[in-house]
């Protein structure tokens, strides 16, 4: 096993160290007397040795009080003394071979709901097991005296447990009833409360039948489902949140007295002068007043080629400064920036989707009235037939208890928990169960290009007359720059022997390229017109996507780059087409770069689309009756992600896009899309089966209850039986995976052959 591998290759290039310190301070609140806490996300932690390495390295730093690794969430919590400067946490981790980034600290907010559920579950479990013990002896035929004692004991245990554990359901049911709606929690709460009330009455009048066990075990089983559901969603949420933040937390603002102050993004006002180092993201919309550089705008507009900027250029919030330091003046606050505009468009688009009702709610809205009506009619029927009020009421309540939607309450969440877990294992995070239902309904897939179909990272595609020697020289130079083309060159030169040239000084000329001296000769790697300056080679400059390596102004070789398709993009699209989907590409990039990619995949395309165009396009598709799955990553895709029926984003997506998407996939392969759809569809099938099972159970059990044959024993057996059936059916999704794995193993050779053919 290769353990705790360090990321070899690149010369470490850090953004401005001061800015990093200020960012750490912003993200580290004071948690105790003079102690700050920093949460770091370290996605590569995976074993016991990693834990030791990290904790030892961090504990050794000056000022660190304690460092604790959480392997489940891949996070490190560091407490350090607030009187000193922030310890170099991220740098230390990087030296130890771990990529780390800041995780926004939340004061135990997410844990609150989970621990409430777990505590409720523990209390219900305790009460259910003890009441069940007492009930078994009653069913076994205890004498009247013992039976009454046991009923009283059960009541004493059940009352606090019901009050404590039942709150979860009562609260949600009360919310629904107060707003004139009904959900699954309404019949659950009503059934449990009535079962308890009737049993309590029976106990007081020393009657033979009490249903305490049914009421409490129902709570217990439903809480198990609820807790599992919550934990899966929480895990997905944390995993998505743990990804690197791709918008600026703040920036250095130049004060009037010449000093610099680090301000969080939302405190930056129009007209402030911001100093933007290479490697920083633009915090708010701004204009360049000094300096020149290149910007990576792929997350913002979808254009994959870096854009050159100089004095007077307009920058959009969220773009990444690649090469040179810039002085910029804010032209908008964060709320009015491009980002803020996207968030507003997203909110507007989301309103359309919120009308979607989850299948469980739809089932509940049919189920609850039907059940309550049946109970009422039973009551009236028995009252008319026997004129015995108490008897009629007892039977009517027994109907409510037996129909209490235990199986129905588990039918949907259990399947979704198993499905979400399967997707999680495949690196796909699902935000909530409703997303799976919507995904299963999709019939059209719209892809964004840059960063979604393509990796968003340029790759060296060919170089005229480039030998291994010149590529190695270029890679050596490129290691000193963060420009995406340089990164691609470093990657290409990774396996090559080091060149026999020692460079004395290497400098980066923002917007142009790199220059290095070796003895008397000058090497330049960069834009052709700059690298070949002084030599008039008319007609040899082939376009802005090529880079030239020149020695003293004469060309050694040139390199061309292209954004490459993601691994398996072609397979994924072919698979989707085979499944009967209509597949489209819509991109903010220029036609010239969209067309070849769309042609390669054989799908219709739309280029140079503005964010608004994307949403209108999706709205038009939806209006024509299609259900759209949008897959996109950029800031400009966020409104479209929110507008579509279902949406997915890669882990490399802009923060807003990740938040807008229903699902986030972590692996590079695009086959995540067809995989998620097929799991969502089989989950949908199982949900419908489960609902059918629950209905069948009611068809059998309700007549027995109406006829008045339900004793506590019958109720306990029927209810647990139906729950077990539903849970077992949900677990079939898990067993299907094993057979799918076996099939996947057989398919591997073809995949390898395809890769070799590329």
């Amino acid at each position, binding site marked *: 096993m290769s353990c705790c591998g360090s990321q070899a290759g690149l010369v470490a290039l850090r953004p401005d160290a001061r800015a990093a310190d200020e960012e750490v301070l912003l993200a580290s609140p004071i948690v105790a007397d003079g102690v700050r806490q920093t949460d770091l996300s370290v996605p590569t932690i995976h074993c016991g040795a990693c834990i030791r390495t990290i904790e030892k390295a961090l504990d050794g730093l000056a000022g660190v009080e304690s460092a604790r690794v959480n392997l*489940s969430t891949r996070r490190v919590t560091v407490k350090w003394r607030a009187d000193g400067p922030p310890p170099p946490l991220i740098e230390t981790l990087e030296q130890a071979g771990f990529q780390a980034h800041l995780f926004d600290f939340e004061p135990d907010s997410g844990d609150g709901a989970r621990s409430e559920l777990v505590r409720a579950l523990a209390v219900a479990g305790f009460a259910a097991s003890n009441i069940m013990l007492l009930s078994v002896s009653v069913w076994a035929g205890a004498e009247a005296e013992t039976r009454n*004692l046991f009923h009283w004991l059960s009541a004493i245990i059940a009352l606090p447990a019901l009050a404590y554990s039942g709150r979860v359901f009562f609260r949600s049911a009360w919310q629904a009833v107060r707003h004139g709606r009904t959900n699954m929690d309404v019949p659950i709460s009503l059934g449990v409360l009535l079962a308890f009330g009737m049993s309590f009455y029976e106990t007081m009048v020393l009657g033979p039948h009490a249903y305490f066990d049914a009421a409490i075990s129902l709570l217990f089983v439903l809480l198990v489902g609820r807790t599992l559901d919550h934990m899966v969603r929480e895990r997905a949420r944390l995993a998505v949140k743990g990804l690197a933040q791709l918008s600026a937390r703040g920036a250095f603002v130049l004060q009037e007295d010449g000093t610099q102050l680090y301000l969080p993004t939302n405190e930056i006002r129009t007209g402030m002068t911001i100093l933007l180092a290479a490697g920083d993201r633009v915090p708010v919309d701004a204009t360049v007043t000094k300096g020149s550089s290149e910007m990576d705008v792929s997350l913002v507009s979808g254009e994959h080629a870096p854009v050159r900027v100089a004095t007077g250029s307009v920058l959009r919030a969220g773009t990444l400064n690649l090469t040179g330091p810039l002085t910029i003046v804010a032209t908008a606050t964060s709320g009015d920036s491009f980002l803020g505009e996207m968030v507003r468009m997203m909110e507007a688009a989301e309103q359309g989707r919120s009308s979607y009702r989850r299948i469980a709610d739809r089932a509940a809205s049919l189920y609850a009235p039907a059940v309550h009506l049946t109970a009422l009619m039973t009551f009236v029927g028995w009252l008319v037939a026997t004129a015995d009020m108490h008897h009629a009421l007892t039977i009517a309540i027994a109907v409510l208890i037996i129909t209490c939607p235990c199986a129905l309450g588990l039918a949907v969440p259990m399947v979704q928990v198993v499905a979400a877990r399967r997707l999680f294992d495949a690196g796909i995070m699902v935000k909530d169960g409703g997303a799976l239902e919507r995904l299963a309904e999709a019939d059209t897939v719209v892809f964004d290009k840059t960063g979604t179909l393509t990796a968003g990272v340029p790759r060296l595609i060919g170089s005229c007359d480039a030998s291994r020697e010149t590529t190695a020289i270029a890679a050596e130079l490129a290691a000193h720059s963060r420009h995406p083309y340089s990164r691609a060159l470093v990657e290409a030169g990774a396996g090559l022997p080091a060149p026999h040239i020692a460079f004395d000084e290497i400098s980066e000329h923002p917007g142009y390229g790199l220059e290095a001296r070796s003895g008397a000769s000058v090497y330049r790697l960069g834009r052709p017109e700059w690298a070949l300056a002084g030599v008039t080679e008319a007609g040899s400059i082939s376009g802005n996507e090529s880079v030239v390596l020149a020695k003293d102004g004469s060309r050694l070789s040139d390199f061309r780059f292209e954004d490459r398709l993601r691994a398996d993009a072609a397979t994924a699209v072919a698979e989707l087409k085979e499944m009967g989907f209509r597949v489209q590409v819509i991109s903010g990039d220029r036609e010239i770069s969209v067309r070849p990619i769309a042609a390669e995949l054989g799908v219709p395309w739309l280029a140079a689309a503005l964010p608004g165009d994307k949403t209108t396009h999706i709205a038009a598709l939806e209006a024509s009756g299609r259900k759209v799955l949008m897959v996109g990553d950029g800031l400009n895709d966020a409104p479209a992600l929110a507008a579509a029926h279902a949406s997915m984003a890669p882990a490399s997506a802009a923060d807003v896009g990740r938040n807008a998407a229903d699902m986030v996939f972590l692996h590079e392969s695009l086959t995540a899309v067809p995989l998620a759809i097929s799991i969502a569809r089989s989950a949908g099938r199982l949900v419908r089966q489960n609902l059918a099972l629950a209905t069948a159970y009611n068809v059998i059990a309700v007549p027995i209850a109406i006829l008045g044959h339900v004793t506590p024993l019958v109720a306990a057996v029927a209810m647990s039986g139906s729950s077990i059936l539903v849970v077992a059916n949900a677990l079939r999704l898990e067993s299907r995976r094993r057979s799918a794995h076996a099939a996947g193993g057989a398919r591997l050779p073809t995949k390898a052959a395809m890769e070799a053919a590329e």
Partner: protein
Amino acid sequence: MKDYFFLIPIALGLGLAALAAFMWSLKTRQYDDLEGAAVRILQEEDVPIRTKSGQ
């Protein structure tokens, strides 16, 4: 009937003790990192979790 006088409180008491133990372990955050706990038992030095109240 006299047997119940002892047996039932004992049975319930045991159950309650288990419940209290579970609540305590939950409160001291022993379930926060189950995967980590599984690999930490193999480490030689035993470092206790420092909770906020423990400082």
